[in-house]
């Protein structure tokens, strides 16, 4: 009886799991909103990336390591972090089309106060958000996994 209870209860209690199931997706969507609207409202790649990382960390704390790693595994995290960095560098190198490195090379910047404006800045925001979110999440994975490995020994 005790053993079967123990097997079910990985992570925190039932109540925390239910609330996490309701709020984690909302927090993730809020992070994506802040990233995409970074050039017309407060926020941007750094704040949005931190919020996205926090939603994954919440899932990991509430449900335990395995379920969180099923959503975003270590190998996928390593690939995504490289993708974020390379995306930034690629957009920066595309600036040679307009003259030099890291230039905002779009000819027309679009109408202000709309989502599709400001040239390359939204793409930079997305790259930075991927980089920050996956970087902090992988730091957290590494800090948690070692504790688990030490317990098993």
């Amino acid at each position, binding site marked *: 009886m005790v053993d079967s209870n123990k097997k079910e209860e990985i992570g925190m209690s039932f109540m925390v799991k239910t609330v996490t199931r309701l709020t984690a997706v909302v927090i993730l969507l809020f992070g994506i909103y802040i990233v995409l609207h970074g050039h017309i409202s407060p926020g941007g790649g750094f704040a949005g990336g931190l919020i996205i990382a926090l939603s994954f960390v919440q899932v990991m704390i509430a449900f335990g390591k395995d379920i969180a790693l099923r959503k975003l595994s270590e190998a996928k995290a390593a690939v995504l972090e490289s993708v974020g960095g390379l995306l930034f560098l690629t957009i920066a190198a595309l600036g040679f089309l307009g003259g030099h490195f890291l230039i905002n090379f779009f000819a027309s*910047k679009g109408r202000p106060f709309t989502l599709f404006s*400001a040239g390359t800045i939204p793409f930079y925001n997305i790259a*930075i958000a991927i980089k920050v979110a996956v970087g902090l999440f992988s730091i957290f994975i590494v*800090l948690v996994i070692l504790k688990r490995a030490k317990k098993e020994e």
Partner: protein
Amino acid sequence: MLELQLLLLFMISAAIIAVEAKDMISSVIALGTVGIGLCLGFLLLKAPDLAITQLVAEILCLIILIRATLKQDLPLVRDGRWFFNTFSTLCFIVIFLIFVFLALKEISVFGNPEMKIAKEILTGSLDKTGATNFITSVILDFRAYDTLGEATILFAAVIGVAAVMRKIGRNKPRA
């Protein structure tokens, strides 16, 4: 101005609690209080982007620190040179504050910064970049090299944590 001074006094008292508290958990939570006070200060000083980022970073910082402090505490030890060490440290800090007081006379007065570069950014940024959030337009257009450097530092920190935490010599026979 007055609310800013009150907020700073609140942060200073929380910092003193964080330094002097006996057990680690209350110390870490007092550090969180300092961070939340900093977030309120950013809001008062008209920096909403920073307030969002600081709030979220503070929560992650608390999670990481609490994960580290679930070990034992250390009692406060008073060995032979305790008074000498504390006295010399306090002397050093007082000298530091005196020099700070002298140096602050040379800085521009609070509330009237010299905005030579910022004036050009504030007037011409909308035509040049099209972004209406000026911080984003500075961070990703005028000074994008800073962001590139930040990405490098973040990558180095991830690699550093992974290298420090890896298990060395797991299969090696013990000498």
